[in-house]
Each structure stands twice: as structure tokens, then as C-alpha cells.
């Protein structure tokens, strides 16, 4: 009887006691954070592709693991990362018929007194075979021209830039030609523009060279070669970027970071069509030479100070790892293997559902986090659960959950930096919109706050200007004005008067135009309709047209067959905006779809492009921005805004608010290191350069990553 009683009453009581003990242990497991943070990622696990991060979160994780040469700091200025310093210089190369001529020219230069050298900025003049290479310590100046004039006394050979395009990869044919051609000695430089084109510099009897080149390629009829002479030059001027890497930086596997790693990374990136930020700047690299273990010299084929931006934020990988893992277009190598980085965090665990990072030995003193775990694939409910139980400290909530979450305890909602923007591009040559006042009226009649609230559920920031907000050269703008009465006045100023039905008209013409958007993108369609509804209030009759992606870009925008178009653009850290607004880009493959052609703007663009001194960029960028925006070639709408929920009790001293961009790196770093906090001003030279004859480099026209919007790929590479 007693045994039965003990069993019947003892078992549930025992089970209750065990339950109580186990729940206390389970709670205790989670209660001690001790510098550990857990982030719950909303979607698939991060691919950790340093060059093609899928999301902003992915990019920020990569930023913890990998280190670029130069990064943008919290203050929006350039900061050295792997690079300790960098300097611009330039070389001028002349070719002669005989090596003796080159030696004589070099001797002639060396015979000049030291004062002359200093005036010219000449550092060295060396004969290398039949060529004379003059190295100048700064960009621009009269030195190169004066030195070239000195060398002209020895009859340097005329040189020519020749472009060859094929229908298939050109590299094997070019290498075969360079090895076997009778005139191969004339070939001085070759620069591959993508897989199917090469630009050659030939010096000497160029006519013969071109003849042999033409004969060589035309013998292969299937290649359909297109050979074109681009320009004649007397000497080749090449900007050179000297980069000194920090001593003692190591990869996570312990091996030292070398200059060769930078060269290998550049080659790796350029071997694939990855749309890394500022890819066009990287394409301008003629060659990279390593000088010792930690110095490298980057030769550029064209003068532009903005090409420095190509190295901003570009993660550098180990050359050995890159050799062992050949690149592929989809970046599978990164999904299957994790390359060692040089960042402040190293990957300690990675599987399909979680990624764990720990600070490196050298960074441990600088960071407040001892371990960061990113759990992926969690449902929104699991995420909320994780936060409620103390399991998770960071998460990326749905827009619909944000209002409720903001009321919660121990939680602050922060917004990550924008990645892309949405704008309305005006066709300034459209008969309806050619008047600036009319475009200004439409801008005044656009209520962007309402659009963000209505279409993005509040997940967007109003954007003004042409540059990425927050950068040192991007201006701050006051909130845009939404004023229907002023808009009405502006429209009347442009000659459009509203009739009794409220429609704006002028004699024989209605204020009716087409707003072009892309087909298959519901979010854009909604935005177009919302804009049409807003503009209708001032009498505009807007017809929304959705064009298929191919037609949208290649036919409608390129052919300027539109009045207004909604465009999405990724932000890039560069001050060179020539591709979009220079008058030379209004034809052919140019991207100046708005058709803006203003000589003053052209000059400002050229000046800005050729600016090598980052400290002088804001002034010129401001001047350009003011001038350009006054012409209203576009209507900036808003940027994306990814929100993150952060447990406030862990890092209470974080005081930024929802409007300040928040990023993971600043979150984990305890205090800025001296290196991180010192903005660097690179020595610069300044010389405005003429706009290159060739069309501007190819650029990306990505889709706007509007939340919950299905992305429709647009063919890239215009």
C-alpha cells in the first residue's frame, strides 16, 4: 500500500522538482552573455562571398571577417585598413628606335640641374631597353610635358592606341599574336577590356603593325574582328598609386598579408563578371607591380583620381587561398570554403544553420564581443521567441512587427546604412519636360514621406543629392519641400495653366507625359501609380507604362524614348559621376539618359574626376551637385532602410537613434583604434583631364531592393 502511495504521489512531485531544476539550468545557460552576442538572420545562411554579399547584413558580416585596403569610417571619411598609406605619382614613357637613343635621352635629363628636377617633380629617368621611363613624384604639373619635350630631341617613336574587339575571348589570340607576329616588338601595352576586347599601344611603324594585326585577325573570319585606332600619342602618361601595407598584419591562418595578395585579389575579381562596387575603377588598372613584401605599385591606364575608390571596401584575400580555389561566376568557392580573412573577427564555426565568429588575438582588446553567432533560417516567430528568452540579441524584424517591437522593453530598433536608391529620371529633351520649372514643379508636388509610409511601410529614407549620404563629400540637404501651391506657381511659370477640369494645359498641348517603369515589378508599378496620383493634383496627366527589362534599358532609356522613368541604383563610393551626367555620354553606349548637356557641368565633372586630393573633393562635389540639381535632371526619391532590433541592455552606451545608420562593425568595436580613427589625406596632384573619347565604363543598373519586392534582373554592362 505504501509503495503504491509513494509511486502515485512521488512520481508527479519528482517530475515537478526535476522540471523546476531543469528550467533554472536552461535559464542560467542563457543568462550569462559575457560578451557573447547571438544574431538571428531572417533568410538563408550568409554565403560569405566577400565580393557579392547578398544583403546588407551579409556585407556587414563580411566586413568583420575581411579587411579592405581602405575603408569608410564612421565619420564617412576614408580610413586606412590594410593599407598604411598611399601616394599618387605618375610615369611618362617614351619609346625610341634604338636603346642608345633612350640612354641618350635619359642622360640628357640627368644632366639637368637638381633645381630643374625639383621644379618638374621628376624623381627618376631611366632607360629600359629602347624606352625612357620618367617618374614624377606628383600628379599633374608641367613637369611631364617639359621632360617629354627634352626627350623629343632624340626622336621618340610615334605611338598609337588601337582597340580590337572579337566575338569571343580575345586573350589567346592576342597572346599568340604577341608571340609570333613580325611586328610584335612594337607592342608596348595591352589592356583587356572584358573578355572580348583589348586596347593595344603600339610604338614604331604603327602602320605596319596595324596591317599585320588586321591580317592576323581577318584570317580568322569567324571572329569578326573590329579594329579601330583610338588615338595617337607621343608619350604615355600613366598615374601610379603606391600603396604601403601595414607591417605585421596577418591572415587568420597566421600567414602574413603581402602585396602579392592585393594583386591576386584584383586579378581574381576581374576574372569574373561580379558587380563589385566601383568595378569600373578597378577596370582602369593597367598593371600591378609588387615592390617587396608590403609595397605595391598600381599603374592606371587613364588619369582619374576617383579610381582610388576602387580599393575602398574591396576585401583583400590571401593569394594562396585564391590560387587553391579557382573563381567561378556563382562564387561557389566561397560557399564551400571560407577564405581566411584579415579582419577583426575570424570564423570559428560555420554550417547550414549557424555561423560563429570570434575576435582575433590582435583585435581582442579592441572589441567588446567575445563571440558572435549568426543563426539563420529562423522564422519570424522563432526570432521573437529568441529575443524573448534572451537567446538572441540582434534580429532583423518584418516591417509590420516594428511598431509593436518599438514599444517593447530592452529593445531598440536601429536602421542599417542604405545600399541603393530609387529616383525618377527626367528626359530633359522631352517636349513636355524640357523646361526646368516644369520639372521643379513636379518635384515640389512629390510627397516622399507619404510614399515611404505608403509603399515601404516606413522602411526608407528620403534621399537628396547625387552621392551616397554620409560620405565626406556628400552634402547634407534640408528635408525636401512638399508644397502644392508653389508647385502650381512653378508650373504656371513654365506656361502650364490649369483648366476648369484641373488639367494643366498650354495652347494646343496638355501637360501629359509618360512615366516609364519596369515590367514585372509590382512595387515599382505601385510607386509609379502613387507618383501619378500625386502629380495629378497639379494637373499633370501621367500615363504609367511598364516596359520589359530589355526594352526598358536598351531601347527606351538608351534611345531616350521616355519622358520620365523610375530607376533604381546601387550606391557606390566614388566622386566620379561623369558616366551619368557628362554630355559625351548622351550618345552611343552612354548612360546620360536624361540628356543633360551643360558645358559648365561637363567641366565640373572633369575636374572632379581628375581630383586626387580627397580633401578637395567636397568643394568640387558640392559645386557639381548644386549646379546639377538646379537643372533638375532627376527627382531623388528615397533609399532603402534595413531595420535591426538590438537588445539595449547589453550595450547600453550605444546611443544612436533610428535615423542614424547603424552597423555591426561599430557595434562590436569597443573603442576606435588609433589607426581606425585617423582620416588619411593622400598627397594629391591636380590636373583637369579631357574626357576620354571612349564611352564611359560600364556601369550597373541594379534593381531597387525595395523590401518584399521581387527583383527583376536588368541586363547589366551597358
Amino acid at each position, binding site marked *: 500500500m505504501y509503495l503504491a502511495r509513494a509511486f502515485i504521489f512521488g512520481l508527479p512531485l519528482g517530475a515537478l522538482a526535476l522540471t523546476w531544476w531543469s528550467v533554472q539550468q536552461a535559464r542560467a545557460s542563457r543568462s550569462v552573455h559575457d560578451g*557573447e552576442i547571438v544574431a538571428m538572420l531572417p533568410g538563408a545562411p550568409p554565403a560569405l562571398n566577400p565580393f557579392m554579399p547578398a544583403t546588407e547584413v551579409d556585407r556587414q558580416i563580411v566586413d568583420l571577417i575581411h579587411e579592405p585596403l581602405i575603408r569608410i569610417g564612421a565619420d564617412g571619411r576614408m580610413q586606412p585598413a590594410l593599407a598604411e598609406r598611399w601616394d599618387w605619382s605618375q610615369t611618362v614613357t617614351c619609346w625610341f628606335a634604338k636603346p642608345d637613343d633612350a640612354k641618350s635621352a635619359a642622360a640628357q635629363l640627368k644632366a639637368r640641374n637638381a633645381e630643374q628636377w625639383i621644379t618638374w617633380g621628376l624623381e627618376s629617368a631611366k632607360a629600359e631597353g629602347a624606352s625612357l621611363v620618367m617618374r614624377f613624384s606628383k600628379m599633374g604639373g608641367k613637369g611631364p610635358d617639359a621632360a617629354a619635350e627634352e626627350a623629343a630631341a632624340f626622336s621618340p617613336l610615334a605611338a598609337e592606341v588601337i582597340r580590337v574587339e572579337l566575338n569571343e575571348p580575345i586573350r589567346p589570340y592576342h597572346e599568340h599574336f604577341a608571340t609570333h607576329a613580325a611586328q610584335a616588338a612594337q607592342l608596348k601595352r595591352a589592356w583587356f577590356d572584358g573578355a572580348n576586347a583589348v586596347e593595344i599601344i603600339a610604338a614604331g611603324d604603327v602602320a605596319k603593325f596595324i596591317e599585320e594585326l588586321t591580317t592576323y585577325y581577318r584570317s580568322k573570319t569567324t571572329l569578326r574582328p573590329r579594329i579601330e585606332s583610338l588615338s595617337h600619342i607621343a608619350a604615355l602618361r600613366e598615374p601610379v598609386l603606391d600603396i604601403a601595407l601595414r607591417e605585421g598584419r596577418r591572415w587568420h591562418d597566421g600567414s602574413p598579408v603581402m602585396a602579392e595578395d592585393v594583386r591576386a585579389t584584383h586579378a581574381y575579381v576581374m576574372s569574373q563578371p561580379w558587380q563589385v562596387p566601383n568595378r569600373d575603377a578597378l577596370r582602369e588598372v593597367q598593371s600591378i607591380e609588387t615592390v617587396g613584401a608590403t609595397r605595391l605599385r598600381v599603374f592606371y591606364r587613364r588619369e582619374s583620381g576617383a579610381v582610388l575608390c576602387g580599393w575602398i571596401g574591396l576585401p583583400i584575400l590571401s593569394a594562396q587561398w585564391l590560387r587553391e580555389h579557382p573563381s567561378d561566376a556563382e562564387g561557389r568557392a566561397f560557399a564551400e570554403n571560407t577564405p581566411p580573412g584579415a579582419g577583426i573577427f575570424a570564423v570559428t564555426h560555420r554550417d547550414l544553420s549557424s555561423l560563429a565568429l570570434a575576435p582575433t588575438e590582435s583585435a581582442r582588446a579592441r572589441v567588446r564581443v567575445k*563571440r558572435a553567432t549568426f543563426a539563420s533560417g529562423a522564422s519570424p516567430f522563432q526570432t521573437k521567441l529568441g529575443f524573448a*528568452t534572451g537567446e538572441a540579441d540582434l534580429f532583423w524584424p518584418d516591417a509590420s512587427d516594428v511598431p509593436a517591437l518599438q514599444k517593447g522593453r530592452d529593445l531598440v530598433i536601429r536602421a542599417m546604412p542604405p545600399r541603393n536608391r530609387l529616383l525618377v529620371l527626367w528626359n530633359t529633351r522631352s517636349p513636355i519636360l524640357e523646361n526646368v520649372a516644369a520639372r521643379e514643379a513636379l518635384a515640389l508636388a512629390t510627397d516622399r514621406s507619404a510614399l515611404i509610409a505608403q509603399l515601404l511601410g516606413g522602411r526608407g529614407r528620403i534621399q537628396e543629392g547625387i552621392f551616397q549620404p554620409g560620405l565626406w563629400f556628400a552634402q547634407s540637404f534640408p528635408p525636401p519641400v512638399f508644397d502644392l501651391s508653389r508647385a502650381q506657381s512653378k508650373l504656371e511659370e513654365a506656361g502650364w495653366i490649369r483648366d476648369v477640369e484641373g488639367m494643366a494645359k498650354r495652347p494646343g498641348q496638355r501637360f501629359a507625359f509618360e512615366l516609364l517603369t519596369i515590367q514585372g515589378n509590382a512595387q515599382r508599378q505601385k510607386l509609379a501609380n502613387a507618383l501619378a496620383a500625386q502629380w495629378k493634383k497639379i494637373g499633370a496627366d501621367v500615363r504609367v507604362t511598364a516596359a520589359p527589362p530589355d526594352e526598358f534599358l536598351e531601347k527606351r532609356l538608351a534611345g531616350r524614348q521616355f519622358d520620365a522613368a523610375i530607376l533604381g541604383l546601387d550606391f557606390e563610393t566614388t566622386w566620379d559621376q561623369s558616366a551619368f551626367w557628362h554630355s559625351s555620354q548622351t550618345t552611343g553606349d552612354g548612360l546620360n539618359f536624361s540628356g543633360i548637356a551643360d558645358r559648365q557641368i561637363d567641366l565640373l565633372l572633369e575636374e572632379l574626376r581628375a581630383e586626387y586630393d580627397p580633401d578637395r573633393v567636397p568643394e568640387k562635389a558640392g559645386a557639381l551637385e548644386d549646379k546639377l540639381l538646379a537643372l533638375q535632371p532627376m527627382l531623388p526619391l528615397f533609399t532603402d532602410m534595413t531595420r535591426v532590433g538590438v537588445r539595449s541592455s547589453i550595450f547600453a552606451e550605444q546611443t544612436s537613434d533610428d535615423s542614424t545608420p547603424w552597423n555591426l562593425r561599430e557595434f562590436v568595436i569597443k573603442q576606435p583604434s588609433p589607426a581606425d580613427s585617423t582620416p588619411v589625406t593622400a598627397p594629391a596632384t591636380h590636373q583637369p583631364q579631357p574626357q576620354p573619347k571612349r564611352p564611359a565604363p560600364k556601369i550597373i543598373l541594379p534593381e531597387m531592393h525595395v523590401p518584399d519586392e521581387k527583383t527583376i534582373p536588368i541586363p547589366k554592362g551597358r
Partner: protein
Amino acid sequence: MIPPRSSANRSSNSFLPLRLIVLGGVLACALLAAGNVPSKEWADFLTGTAVVSSDGSTLIAAMHDRFGTSLLILLGAMILAVASGMALTLAARRIGLGLPSLLALVCRPLALLPVVALAWAAVGWIVGVKGWPIESLLPHHPAPDRDTWQLAAGREMWKWLVPCWVLALPLAAEFVVRCHECLRRWSRSPLNAALHARGVKRNRIFYQHTIALARAELLEIAQSLGFVSLGWLVFVGDVLGTPGWGAFFAAAIKNGDARGIAASVYVAGWLAAVWSLLVSIVRRVAVARTDRSHPPLDEPQPPLVPASTAALISVLLFSLLGCSFTSSNSTGAWLEPLTGLLSPLVRDLSLSAAACIAAAGSALVMLTLSFAARRLRLPLRSIDTLASSPVLVWVLAAAALLPAWRWLVFGLFIAPAGALIMRDRWRALADSGAMEASRAIGTSRFRAWRMHVMPELFRHGLAWALDAFATLLVWQTLVETLRPVAAADHLYSLGAAISRAKENVLTDVLPVLIPALIVAICALFFRLLSHIVRPASSSH
């Protein structure tokens, strides 16, 4: 939720584990056929080598861990439920003062509460209110240097105890109700009276004789509860993310994956077989052959409790109806959230009524078949097997593949229990003394049947139908919770209301519990009506 007690549960247990495996296999093949899976793959399926999940796993690979996990949770929950139920019942009996009846009154609606709502409410309470973790939903992996064996053991124990307790709670409530009835009957046995007359202490009589006598029946209750809990395990596994058979089954239902559903049904047959085997072993060990006597007859229930519950339901429905017309009126404001649930409730009741009619028709057909088989001396055991099996599991599977005909599915699967009750009562009444006496005085066979069999049989049938209606209402709610529901969708079922409310369960548990309570109260109403209608066992 438990099929009404019948003699079949006691008498037809021979080779039950084997029959359950065969039944699971047959039903799985039927589901594969419904899912257009070629018949040549069925053999692979039954041997466990067929691919059943999207990641290419075979049935054995996908289920061998899940089977063990689910069996452990099932056993743990049953032990907790039976022990807690017994402890509560015995404690209440010891205290007296009407506490056993009060306890049974509280436990009745708890046992009818849709288990999915209970599981979500548990999540809401554990996480939202207490801030405790649930390991199965969100496992925690601390850094090795910070982990200790106590923490690891605690986390592991908590991972298993949460689903066990959540499942045990309604099982314990049902067990308390059944245990209370069982012990009350056995305590009125002649043996008890004799021992009491001989001056044996009340406690001694109870623990040494009453419980010993009731052991066989309690085990029978436990066995049927185990079958019920298999169905509930699907929802508990789904809600708590337990990596067992239940979560796999729920995922297959949500995805409409015929192979996954069939695999789950097949495995459910094995799980039920193992459970019935364990119960039969315990029965063989714990119950002496001499104890296997029939329990004393039922006594008529006092109609006060059922009547008051019925009155409560009427008031509630009346209030809902009133509020739907006067929702703008401030006097009905407190009930306003409930008015939105009226339309789903009416729809669920209608569907349950349709299912109940289908069940009655099916039961009559099965009854006829059963008698025909008896006359032809054919061993027709499938109805018995079906009645003693995890019917909710079969219902969930069939309803997932035939969503438009789920009312018919409900009816077909609940019918065997009704057919067995009717058959047993029919046989008992036909062999009763009253019939023998009627025949002896020359009353015609039809007249005797009409006078002595039909009235009582009709009441039994009606009682079963009302009880089945209650069960069907709960099933209907449970099935609906496995269907996706968007926030903008029209609320068509109380199950959908539970599904919609689960998203915010961490901040507000009530929206999950209110529809569940409405279902439970309505089901209780019909179950109590069934008690009122059911004739007390007479001297026939």
C-alpha cells in the same frame, strides 16, 4: 476525445499490435494510391526503403530518430498524465467534500480543449510571461568554456520535459475524469461493501482492493489515452518544434506531401503497436487473471451538472448573437472580440453536424456488415481494430489529402466506435432476461424487439451521436489549425482563429485560448447531453 467505452476494447485485444501495424500499412497504401504514387513503389515503402522527404531521405532514415523521440515523449507524457491524474484523483477522494466531482468538472473542459491551443498557450506562458526558454524551439549552444554538465543536463531535461508536460496536461485531465468514474463504480462493488462491513479501514480497502480491482480498467483507459495522445503529439510536435514523428507529420500535412503523410501514417501504426504491446505487457504483469472481472454497472448521472453547463452554453451563444447585432452598443463591448468568432463557430458546428450524420450512416452500414459477417461466420475484425487505434491520426492524414470531403472522412473514421457500441448493446439486449421472458409468454419477435431492445438502443445511438459530435467539433478545429491562414483571410473556422492568433502568442495568450475555450465548452455541452441521454445500465 476517447472513443466511448465498449466491450470491444476489452475483448478484442488479441494480436492488436500486429493488427495495428497492418492497419497502418493498409491506410498508408491507400493514401499513396490517393496521392497517385505507383503501386510498384508500395513494397519499397512498406520495407522502409522508399524516399519520403524532399531531401531524399528514405523512410527508415527519416524516421528512425523521430520514432524514438516520439515514443519517448509519448511514454513520458503518459507516465506523467497517469501518475498526476491518479495523484489528483486520490488526493481529492481523500479530502472528500465533493472535491472529486469538482475536480472532474474542471477537468472535463480541459480534456476537450484543442491541444494545439494548449500548446500555444504553453509557449505564450513559458516564453512570453515567464521568459523561460523552450529548447526544442530554439536550441542554445553556449561556448564550450562556459558550459557545465549541470547546464547541459538541465537544458536536455527541459527539452524533453516541455513536450511531455504539455501533452500530459490534457491527458491527465481526461484520465482524472475517467479514473473518477471508474473508481466510483468499483468502490461500490459488493467486495468493498463486504470489507467495509468487516471493519476494514477505508484506506486499506481502497488501496489494496478497489485499485487492484480497477487496475485492468485503468490500463484500458491508459491504452486508449495513448492512442489519443498519438494524434495530439502531431500538434505538440508542430508547435514546440520537437524533432519527432509528429513534427514530420504536421509538416507533411502543411505541404500536402502524400508520401510524407503516408509515411507518417505507417509509422503511427508502429508507434500504436509498440504502445499497445507495452500496455499488454504491463497488463500481464500487473493484473491477475482473477481481477479481470467486469466492473459494476453504471449508475444514472445526476442531471444538474450537464443541465447547468447546457444553460451556460445557451447564455454564451445568446450573448454572442446579441452582440453581433448590437456590437456598437457599449453594453456589449466586452464581448465584442467574441462576436467575430460566432460565424466560424456556426460553420464548425454545421460541418460537425454533417460529419455526424455521415458517421451515423456509416455506423449503421458497419453494424449491418458486422451482423452479416457474424451470420456468415466470417471473422470481421477490421472494425474492432479501427475502433482501437489512433483514429485522429488517420483522420488528419485523410483530411489532408481530401480537404473538400473531410466531413465524410471524419464520419467514416469515427463510425466504427459507434457500430461497436450499438452491436454490443444490441447483443446484450437481445440476450437479456426481458427478451427471454417475452419470448416465453409468446410475444412476437418484432413486438418483443420493439418493446425491450429498440427504445434503449435508440438512446444509446443518440448518446453516441452526441458524444461523436463533441469529438468531431474538436477534430474539426484541430484539422483547421494545420491549414495556412493569412492575416487578411476571412476567418472561416475557430481553428483558423487559433492559427492566426498564434503569431502574437508571446504578448497575448487570450486570442489563442478564447476560440479553444469556445470549442471546449461547446464540445462539453454535447458530451454532457450525451451523458443525459445515455440510459443507465438496466437490469436487462
